[in-house]
């Protein structure tokens, strides 16, 4: 019996939430200590999972299965594979950081930290679920703490943002629920089948009518597309990101946005391979538009946090692009970008939070020359900026490059257009940096306090991991690859689609194909 990682990863933060909630809010220090401690334990667990993970295996590992709701055939079915592994680890990593960065929280501290831990549990649940119902449960539950975090501890327009976030994503989930239900019930009606929500069973079912599959794909996809968010379903994102407290933004960008892309990978591609192939052009188009659109709109924002928020739209565009390229390279690139974006954008939000803490504004115009008065902040901000815009040697590049090249081999036009996003990213990020950090500081900017040790401790790990993954992405890619390959071959086995083999691309192949062309 292997160590029940899934349950542990779920239970530790959940129990921590209960404990945290039980401590009176007046004992602020105790609350913080417990919450951070719990999140560190979770981090340790996810690290242990990473170590224990067998990197050669494509299927689920550490699977736990137990009947939950018998009459509905619902199992408590959890496990991890290459696709979810790093999402889990990223969750484990970002939470201690987000909790440490929550220094400005002063009202109802216990509730805040308890909700954070609930959120962590829900996210772990989402990434670890193999049962569709279970997945949906966590998917919806996750909304609640996030809603409260934005709505209670956010900034001025927090209520609007929180409600918008909730309603928007709930709308997506509604369709997802419909999709899950329809799929499971249609499957149950098939001869010899019974009602089950087990992804592994459902994905092997071949009896789904192609037309129905397309509708179901859309139902699933709508939900995921909102979460990603794909253009034009993105407008909840800037509001939610900007109004959320710093830690909330970090988690929103770092983890919640990944849910959509993760959903596409985990469910859309596996359950509806043919529909995925059919709809790939649509999603690629939206992703490409998102890349350009996010970048262009980001450039025009006056609020620094909005710049970062819109940049997420662009970055996640790369993820979806890579995913729906339906090539091993593309999907690995997408996954890599997910992790990388979690690190860099998380760090960016932390830094913007620091700027806000000092000046109580996020308006770019209000800053200037901060690099001079706060050299560490400036330097780190710049480093993170470059990581974010995909400078080789930092993690952003590897992901973007792989998604683009993975797309290029099958869908050239999208990759070409999307690659211009690389230029635009430099424009808006460096322009923002220039306006905030360069020049001669005046007024409050001249007496800007540089980063404290705690702040460094929150940002530097993210930057460090970004650098590490930029130079040595292998630990991630090699664990991801078997699962991605299995996913692609699953899609190939069910459709006419075949991804071009790199082995076929070599010079000999070129020579022979040109001969054929000559005939």
């Amino acid at each position, binding site marked *: 019996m292997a160590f029940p990682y899934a349950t542990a990863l779920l239970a530790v933060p959940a129990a921590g939430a209960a404990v945290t909630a039980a401590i009176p809010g007046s004992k602020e220090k105790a609350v913080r200590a417990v919450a951070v401690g719990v999140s560190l334990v979770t981090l340790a667990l996810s690290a242990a999972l990473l170590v224990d993970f067998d990197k050669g295996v494509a299927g689920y590992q550490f699977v736990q299965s137990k009947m939950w709701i018998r009459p509905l055939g619902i199992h408590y079915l959890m496990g991890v594979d290459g696709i979810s592994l790093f999402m889990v680890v990223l969750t484990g990593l970002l939470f201690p950081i987000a909790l440490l960065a929550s220094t400005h929280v002063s009202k109802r501290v216990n509730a805040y930290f308890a909700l954070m831990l609930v959120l962590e549990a829900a996210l772990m649940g989402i990434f670890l679920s193999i049962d569709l119902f279970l997945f949906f449960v966590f998917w919806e539950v996750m909304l609640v703490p996030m809603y409260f975090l934005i709505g209670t501890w956010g900034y001025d327009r927090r209520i609007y943002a929180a409600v918008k976030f909730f309603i928007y994503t709930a709308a997506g989930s509604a369709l997802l629920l*419909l999709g899950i239900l329809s799929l499971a019930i249609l499957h149950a009606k098939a001869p010899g089948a019974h009602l089950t929500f087990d992804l592994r069973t459902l994905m092997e079912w071949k009896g789904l009518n192609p037309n129905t599959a397309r509708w179901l794909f859309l139902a699933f996809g709508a939900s995921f597309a909102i979460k990603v968010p794909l253009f034009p379903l993105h407008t909840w994102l800037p509001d939610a990101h900007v109004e959320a407290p710093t830690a909330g933004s970090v988690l929103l960008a770092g983890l919640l946005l990944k849910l959509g892309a993760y959903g596409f990978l985990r469910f859309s591609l596996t359950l509806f391979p043919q529909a995925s192939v059919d709809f790939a052009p649509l999603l690629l188009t939206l992703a490409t538009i998102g890349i350009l659109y996010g970048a262009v709109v980001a450039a025009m924002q006056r609020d620094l946090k909005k710049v970062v928020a819109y940049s997420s739209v662009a970055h996640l565009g790369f993820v979806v692009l890579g995913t729906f390229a339906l090539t091993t390279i593309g999907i690995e690139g997408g996954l890599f970008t997910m992790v990388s974006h979690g690190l860099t954008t998380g760090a960016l939000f932390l830094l913007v939070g620091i700027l806000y803490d000092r000046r109580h504004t996020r308006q770019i115009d209000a800053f200037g020359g901060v690099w001079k008065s706060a050299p560490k902040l400036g330097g780190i901000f710049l480093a993170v900026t470059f990581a974010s815009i995909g400078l080789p040697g930092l993690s952003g590049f590897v992901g973007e490059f792989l998604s683009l090249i993975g797309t290029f081999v099958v869908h050239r036009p999208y990759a070409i257009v999307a690659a211009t996003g690389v230029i635009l990213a430099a424009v808006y990020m460096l322009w923002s940096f220039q306006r905030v950090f360069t020049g001669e500081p005046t007024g409050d900017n001249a007496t800007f306090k540089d980063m404290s040790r705690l702040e460094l401790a929150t940002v530097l790990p993210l930057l460090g991991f970004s650098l590490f993954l930029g130079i040595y992405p292998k630990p991630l890619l090699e664990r991801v690859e078997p699962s991605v390959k299995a996913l692609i071959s699953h899609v190939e086995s069910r459709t006419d689609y075949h991804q071009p083999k790199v082995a076929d691309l070599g010079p000999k192949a070129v020579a022979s194909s040109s001969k054929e062309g000559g005939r």
Partner: protein
Amino acid sequence: MIALAALLGQATPTDTSTKIPVPQVDWLSVGPEVALIGVAMLLVLIAALNRGRRDLSGVYLDVGLAGVAAAGLCTWKLWTVVVHSGDAYQSLTGMVAVDGFSVFARTVILAATALGLLVAQGYLRREQVEGPEYHALLLLSASGMLLMTSANDLIVVFLALEILSIALYVLAAFDRNRLESGEAGLKYFVLGAFSSAVLLYGVALVYGATGTTSLTGIANYLASNTLFSSGLLLAGAALILVGLGFKVAAVPFHMWTPDVYQGSPSPVTGFMAAGAKAAGFAALLRVFVSGFGAYSVDWRPLVLVLAIASLLLGSIVALVQQDVKRMLAYSSISHAGYVLIGVQADTKGGVSSALFYLLTYTFMVIGTFAVVTIVGRKGDRRHSLDDYRGLGSRAPLLAGSMTFLLLAQAGIPLTSGFVAKFNVFAASVDAREYGLTLVGVITTVIAAFFYLRVIVMMYMSDPPEGTAPAGDGLRAFTLDPATGLALGVAVLATVVMGVLPGAFIDFARHATLLF
């Protein structure tokens, strides 16, 4: 039916003397109803003997609860009987159906009754309303609801409807200090009487169409005969649908709901929302699914329209309400829509999902109204959204319970509300009603919006100026232990049915199998 025929055979031809053979009475089959009516009368008796000399309010509650417990025992006993006999049967010359369905529906109603009594206790004390009339009327109304669940004859359905309604009219108008209460009672009464007349006309037409009012009789007649004209039957069914639709607050027969829910004393509203709806749906299910089952092709599209209208109107109009009770009234309309989705499926799964929905809704809605009762404070007047401002810091537990219950009503997972909606949608999808299901899921989103409004007020809007900060909660809100108990039970049930719903779903399924 066989027993009935035998009885008739004995009774009519020869015996012309004044002796009338009394039919065999299976007391157990009507035990719950009898228990409640008996206890209600006992309460009136106690009050008459006491003549207001001593404060017996605690005793009234205990007696009432004892009655509910007795009824519950009977119900449980019935369950074992039904399960052991393995089949449904009728008693009292076919007037009473003894089956899993009635047992389940009774369980729901008894739960509503017990919680209704508990919630009301704090209210009665606070408003200094003495006397057991409230309890007696509540129990009598509950007995009407129970009668409805087991009614196997349209005439019993009608009588039960009247019993539950007339008691509710009085309860709605119970608060003499608020003009709204009287208005609610009167409006409910006028419309209730009107709809009863319509229902009764429908019964008459069905009687003309089939020659009987017994539901099994109707079903058998329709199954074995092809009517040369179905107009009479369909007209009757339509009018019955109107009458029952009125009771469950389905659009377009819902107009009374907001006014009555808002005007009635808060505990009454909770009881009304839970019990009357459950009873109405029990009757609707029995009459249509079992009685008019042969004509489901005709009534299903109609129920579909009612369901869609209820879902949309309920959730959309709730958006613009400023009064929490009124908002909850509209929400109850949309909840009726969800149950109608289950009804519309016209399958065992659909019926069981509707039953399960009613069970969960009972706890959710009474719990919610328990909070509303407490927040309403003395005079039962503070129900506007603004009155919830800052509740999160003033009374964290209260606000927490309210939040949880509202999220449950919104259908967030790990609450019973989610499982209930999931079941209903599953049944609908199973019946290939994708359009209806789509409307259902979309309205959950709209509905989420107005539940969130309350939550926003409680947590995210700062408390109004002049009110004391946290810690003062206990003085601001008098929390009666009984009301607290009801709230706790409601929350607990909502959690349990949300996290471990398996047994309850099984119960509902089992109930439906014996239908």
